[in-house]
């Protein structure tokens, strides 16, 4: 159980730090942005768009990290279980509540 919790905690901490970094970028770089000869409304839309792109990148990084971790962990477990003869074949698929 400890290994699972440590891995997730590291991911959570990394994503939290990325969020703070993203907010810093928005605060220091995107919000003060002024584009000469461009209407303020267009500038505001660009700022919101850039911030949204950052948020999507944040979610994408989060997804990729966990996806890679999941398949790597599952494959390692399957390799181990094949060696010991313990694995999915002994189980049954479940349907229902909760």
């Amino acid at each position: 159980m400890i290994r699972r919790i440590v891995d997730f905690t590291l991911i959570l901490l990394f994503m939290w730090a990325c969020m703070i970094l993203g907010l810093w970028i928005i605060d220091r770089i995107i919000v003060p942005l002024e584009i000469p000869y461009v209407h303020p409304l267009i500038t505001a839309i660009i700022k919101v768009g850039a911030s949204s792109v950052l948020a999507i990148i944040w979610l994408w990084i989060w997804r990729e990290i966990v996806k890679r971790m999941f398949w790597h962990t599952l494959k390692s477990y399957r390799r181990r279980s094949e060696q010991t003869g313990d694995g999915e074949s002994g189980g049954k698929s479940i349907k229902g509540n909760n």
Partner: protein
Amino acid sequence: MFMIIESLVFAVGFVSSLLSMPAVMKFMRSRGIVGVDMHKLDRPSIPEMGGVAVLIGLTASTLAAAALMPDRANILLAFLFSALIAGIIGAIDDLKPLSARVKPLLTLLSGVPILLMGAYNRRGPIFPMIGQTRLSLVYPIVILIALAVTSNAVNMLDPFNGTMSGSCTVITISMLISSLILDRWEGLILSLCLLGPLLVLYLFNKYPARVFSGDVGSLAIGAALGAIAIIGRLEAAAVIAFAPQIMNAFYGLSTIGRLYERREVPRPVILRDDGRLEATSDPKAPITLARIILAYGPMHEREAARTIIILSIISGILSVFTAYLMKVTT
């Protein structure tokens, strides 16, 4: 005086839920509204829709708060109506399953009372480092989406006995502490309104479950938590507290590529003959938080549920730290 009101609100919610839960369980069983607990080898039948008792407790605590503080009744009622709308949608889904697209669309309605009663910060959310944003035009749309997201994300993270009720209790406590740090009265009182009924649900829903919450409970609790974040101006802290739910919903949706109901896709978890749970290697099954946790190897349901709650506690601690950052940087 204020501490007395807070204690009273919590007690009303807790006691009314505690008293109504056995009656709700008995009623559901007598009407045949039961679900099979498929993570046990003996597959017991468990009464469904225990969330009705949460709604009873939440209604009692919120009305008690409104009676004690009539000048704040507006935001209290906005919070209550949001949770009730989501609860009604959940009850419909429990009795006659809605499609994977209709349910999230209907839950958009749960944000409407907050908008109609003006129970939100009209300028937009507050973030650490950035401070007060100016999103007055976009924010009302964000509120509708946010409540639909929180209610459905909570509904999706209910794989084992006690995980939904336990993780939501942790989120509520972290919102309560964040409200204390940021001196947000609304967040504090609304968290207390929800905490009592949630604790009762956890007591009855923890492993081995004596009741299932049903969508009536999970959607209402999710909407109530979203409403606390919006009304209490705790959006940034809430995003972090919701990390396990966001993770679970986001991975599931990105693997399947569309909105889905559990019954439509291969199950991500397998019950072994020894009673332990195992992650399936079926590539068509969604990558859910439960499946990721079980990818390390088989576990008993009790341990798997405990792991998810521990992860919620860690995100709760990070969310409280985020609230502290909001206080010192804005």
